């Protein structure tokens, strides 16, 4: 398997499951002490022994037959519901400066990897797209449902502003049953709709992982000279000297990120900021790690 993930190649990959698998396994490649090991009874696979694995996990019978060390792995039974809330507002169409990868695509890949890992662990996966044409798929564990989620995830388009949370009350009520909710968004809001959503999602039985996506241009404001900018969500336009406003923008950007992190911390939400221009493998590994940690806390 290729040890590095190529965003361009991934974008050309039409097989949704394969892409999710590549992303997830590529990100997890090289990690010792596989997280798939568990106390479940359903056999999953044999894999080669890796330093760090407990000796008790060795299949001695297989060693006797093949004279090689193998670890017997089993599917872990789980009743965790993994929900992915995807921001479907137009600001998610902001693309990276290096490639044409948009935040929406990046979020789709992240969620598909989470779904892949979760499905392999036997967790139920569900999707909620918070957009103008929001889609909602309840969490289930079946393989067909997993495929359905991947297809629905792949068909999500971004437009308009983040919707008012009052229209999503019904979906939110279903997200609060022993669930891990992963919110993938850039957290740009016209009012306080995203804050209200986070407050609504977080409960004692629900853990929330917020993944903030940003591009390099958003983080560093790499514009120069006189620019005329149009806001994606509202269509508002402003004309200004980019060099003159950069210091002020960066200061407000820092305040924005700090405030978001504080608001998440106040609600007990794990927050992760991901720059989509950074290597995808590293980011997805961090996201899956954070997802796994949050899932463990829910269990």
């Amino acid at each position, binding site marked *: 398997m290729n040890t590095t993930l190529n965003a361009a190649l991934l974008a050309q990959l039409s097989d949704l499951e394969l892409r999710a698998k590549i992303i997830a396994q590529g990100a997890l490649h090289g990690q010792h002490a596989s997280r798939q090991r568990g106390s479940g009874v359903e056999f999953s696979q044999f894999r080669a022994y890796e330093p760090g694995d407990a000796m008790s996990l060795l299949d001695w019978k297989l060693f006797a037959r093949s004279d090689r060390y193998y670890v017997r792995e089993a599917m872990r039974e789980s009743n965790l519901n993994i929900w992915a809330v995807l921001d479907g507002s137009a600001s998610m169409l902001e693309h990276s400066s290096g490639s044409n990868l948009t935040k929406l695509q990046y979020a789709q890949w992240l969620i598909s990897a989470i779904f892949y890992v979760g499905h392999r662990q036997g967790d139920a996966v569900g999707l909620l797209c918070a957009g103008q044409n929001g889609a909602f798929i309840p969490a289930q564990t079946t393989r067909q449902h997993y495929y359905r989620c991947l297809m629905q995830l792949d068909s999500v388009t971004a437009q308009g502003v983040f919707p008012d949370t009052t229209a999503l009350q019904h979906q939110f009520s279903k997200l609060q049953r022993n669930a891990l909710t992963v919110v993938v968004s850039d957290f740009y809001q016209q009012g306080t709709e995203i804050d209200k959503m986070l407050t609504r999602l977080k409960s004692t039985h629900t853990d929330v992982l917020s993944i903030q996506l940003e591009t390099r241009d958003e983080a560093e404001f790499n514009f120069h000279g006189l*620019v005329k900018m149009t806001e994606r969500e509202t269509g508002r336009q402003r004309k200004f000297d980019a060099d*003159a406003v950069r210091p002020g*923008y960066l200061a407000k950007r820092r305040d924005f990120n700090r405030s978001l992190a504080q608001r998440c911390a106040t609600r007990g939400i794990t927050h992760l900021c991901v720059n989509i221009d950074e290597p995808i493998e590293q980011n997805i590994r961090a996201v899956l790690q954070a997802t796994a940690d949050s899932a463990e806390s829910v269990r």
Partner: protein
Amino acid sequence: MAWGVSDSTVLWAFALLAVPLLIHLFSRSKAQSHVFSFLALIPVEKMRQRSRIALTQKRLLALRILLLSAIILWLAGLHITTPYSAQDEIHFITPSWLANATQAQRDDLFEKADKANQHIILPDTHLVAERSSLQDTASNTWHRVGEWLRYQPGALSSGAQLTVYATDAMTDYVGQKVPLPHRVQWQLISMIPKVDPLPTSTSSAIHATVYLVEDPQPAAPAFMAALAALQPLTGLNLTIKRQRDLPENVDVFDAVIRFSREFEKSPDNRVWHVSEFDHTTRADFPLRLADALFSAAQHNIALSQLTVPHDLITSPLSPTAAQERNVALPNPMSKDLSANSATSELIAGIAFILLLMERLFSEFVTRRRASHD
């Protein structure tokens, strides 16, 4: 009052004004269009600063255009001229006043006329000399003014102020007693402007040598005063030689004035016989003499139109040379031009200083902003 330029071809340089304009338009940084996810993080106050920068650039462009315009106008020799047909003030000087006024009064009048770009008009008594009632009518000042206006309608315009310098002599005022000298003013209500220039002169200088033959009687002081006043008034370079008799070996002279009982002149207008009565009561004699001297110098000029010939006398000459020869008369080709050129230079200088200050201020603001950032 009208604007004029000495060299109208330089005005084509106004096309150069398009250069800074085009530079400004082409150097204007076109705004690059971008679609951005969230504009709320972009500080608004910095955008206002951008508009201030744009305003500064426009101000700079205006100053550059102003500077260039001032330079072009300066090169073109912009000046403000008062057309002859639109005189604001005309001094009508009677010969008697000229003869009786003191030198200080005459100098004051000439200086005032020079500064105010005004003109002095002496009535040509030739116009009324043929009239039969010379003693009763032609010598009356008001009648002379009327005659002059009748023959010189184009010299005055609507709103012009006519000032008459006269004496209280019986020959000037019939039935009126006024202090000496006296100034009477009329405000002309309506007069159609008209310019009727005379033919140009071909001579380059007006020098005249006049012999006064004081035999059998000497020249009266009034006559001498009037003759002396003739020089600064007309710009004539008059050489007056007083002799008991005309020397026989003298063959270069322009006029010979003999004081005798009869008033007559020779057919060639060079020898004048002036009686005592003529040079005392008929004080317009110096004007007639000057008229003859001008004619002898081939200046086709009548003293009654002294304001016009002044320009025309100087026209074939350089302004400097003309100014030297006509020190007493207003000279729009010399003094006025230099004064208005100085105005153009002043405008150019002010524009340059403003441009420099603007540049320094912009640099200061830019550096200060950079240090704050």
